[in-house]
């Protein structure tokens, strides 16, 4: 059987966080009430003219610089003509041959291997409206209702080079891109709500070949999981077609998440024919060096820089740092917690361990997490100071999930306060010595490890509440 190489390129649409739409003054905020953020401009009525929102250019430059692009000085807008009710002008304002950003890159790391993925271009365009279908699916609907609230909202489309060779690489690229767009605050990156959307171009070629195979575009990938599953499915499907002696046709397919398959989207127009031409209603945009350099100077700390800082400033392992910086909210939570925490690695352990497990389980993000960074820091400190054993710390954490209370207060409330009473501890020590003569003999024979076992026994007897420092000290004294 022939071995194949997978070739993947991604096209990512990001809705910009502007207050108003790209070419009219309607609010760009999301609303559930149809056709309430509309005006004659975005409704395509005669006699209206588009005027570009300056913030769109600002955001596009910022995103471009953050992914190492060269900002193009001369920009123009083009009309992409198509007939579909989601835009009432019958064209979308976009940029064809003069995109604002060219030739960037994003570095990814998959299984410890660094790889650079090219960013071909970024261009500015407008979003389309939404169709609400009367039936269960588009093809079973006799009619649809069109809502133009989203029509005209500013988008950037970020097009990658076909540099990815596996679904995991595609996922890593999208994760890094998403983090960069979050850090630069140009997009809120909510994939489920559609403010960040991804299409994947997937093809396969025999291993060692230099010419790419037939490219299939997959649409409707609204989660990382969907991206990975769709690519894996599509690669397998393409292999089977070729192995059966079939031929692939260049087409657009849609991802059916419920059934885990890609489906061909039959296109009435035989070939894409968008009849692009310059939009004469919009004047060119010329970006000078001063503008570019100002935006560059104002760029916030980006994920890669933040990762390096966490490793240097707090001595975090690379793995920990990379997970913490992967979302802006997690990175901010960490930074807030380490302000008062006495053990940065301890904070990281909680975030990567129990906190992430809880968030995944609840299906929420850390921005919705009830436990405040200050309280998590306090919990870390109580463990660090030996007030709580790690076992009891987990117990306190479980209580904190119910209500964001100070762990110190919870320790009192739950009666988990450490036993520091010498008499009480001595009783546990004596019991443990009496019950474990072998360990005592081992210790006296020079096996230091035996003391660990005895300490464990004492802690167990005290239900984890004995002061570990005192236990150590008193046990050693007793055994001398």
């Amino acid at each position, binding site marked *: 059987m022939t071995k194949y190489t997978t070739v993947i390129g991604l096209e990512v649409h990001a809705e910009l966080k502007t207050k108003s739409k790209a070419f*009219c003054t309607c609010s760009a905020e999301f609303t559930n009430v*149809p056709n309430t953020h509309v*005006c004659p401009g975005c409704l395509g009525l005669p006699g209206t003219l588009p005027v*570009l929102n300056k913030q769109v250019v600002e955001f596009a430059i910022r995103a471009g610089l953050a992914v190492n692009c060269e900002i193009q000085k001369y920009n*123009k807008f083009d009309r992409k003509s198509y*007939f579909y*009710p989601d835009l009432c002008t019958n064209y979308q304002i976009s940029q064809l041959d003069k995109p604002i950003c060219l030739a960037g890159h994003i570095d990814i790391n998959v299984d410890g291997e660094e790889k650079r993925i090219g960013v071909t271009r970024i261009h500015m365009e407008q979003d389309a409206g939404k169709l609400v279908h009367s039936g269960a699916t588009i093809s079973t609907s006799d009619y649809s209702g*069109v809502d133009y609230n989203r029509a005209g909202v500013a988008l950037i489309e970020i097009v990658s080079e076909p540099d990815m060779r596996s679904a995991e690489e595609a996922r890593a690229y999208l994760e890094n891109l998403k983090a960069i767009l979050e850090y630069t605050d140009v997009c809120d990156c909510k994939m489920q709500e559609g403010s960040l959307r991804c299409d994947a171009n997937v093809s396969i070629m025999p291993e060692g070949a230099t010419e790419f195979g037939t490219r299939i575009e997959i649409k409707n990938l609204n989660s990382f999981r969907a991206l990975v599953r769709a690519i894996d499915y599509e690669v397998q499907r393409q292999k089977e077609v070729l192995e059966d002696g079939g031929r692939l046709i260049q087409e657009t397919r849609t991802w059916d998440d419920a059934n885990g398959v890609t489906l061909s989207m039959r296109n009435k127009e035989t070939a894409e024919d968008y009849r692009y031409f310059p939009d004469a209603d919009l004047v060119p945009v*010329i970006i000078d060096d001063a503008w570019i350099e100002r935006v560059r100077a104002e760029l916030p700390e980006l994920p890669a820089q933040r990762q390096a800082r966490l490793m240097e400033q707090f001595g975090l392992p690379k793995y920990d740092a990379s997970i913490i910086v992967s979302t802006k909210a997690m990175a901010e939570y960490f930074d807030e917690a380490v302000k008062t925490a006495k053990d940065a690695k301890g904070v990281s352990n909680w975030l990567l361990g129990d906190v992430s497990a809880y968030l995944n389980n609840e299906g929420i993000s850390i921005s919705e997490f009830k436990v405040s960074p200050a309280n998590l820091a306090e919990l870390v400190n109580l463990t660090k100071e030996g007030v709580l054993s790690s076992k009891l710390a987990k117990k306190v954490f479980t209580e904190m999930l119910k209500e964001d209370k100070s762990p110190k207060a919870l320790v009192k409330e739950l009666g988990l306060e450490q036993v520091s009473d010498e008499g009480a501890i001595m009783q546990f020590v004596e019991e443990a010595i009496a019950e474990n003569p072998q360990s005592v003999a081992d210790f006296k024979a020079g096996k230091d490890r035996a003391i660990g076992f005895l300490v464990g026994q004492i802690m167990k007897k005290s239900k984890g509440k004995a002061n570990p420092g005192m236990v150590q000290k008193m046990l050693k004294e007793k055994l001398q």
Partner: protein
Amino acid sequence: MKVTADIALRIADLTKVIIPEAEMDAYLEHYNKVFDYADELQKLDTENVEPTTYILPIYNAFREDVAVEGVTQEVALKDAPAVYNGGFKVPRVME
């Protein structure tokens, strides 16, 4: 380039225009006049001419990012031939 009936029908399809058979000859004449003129322009020497996309010396006409109340749903839908759930009702979009 000569515009044939096939090409005319393709243009008509893309632009959602119906060309009645009786009027095809008249359409072809119009189309070919436009194409002939384009052929004339193709003959010009543009070797050292910068591409022009906008002829007026204006650029960077921006507005600030301020949202302004648009029209109400009622006004937006006032002239719609049909309405469905607060949206413009459109016929089946997929064959």
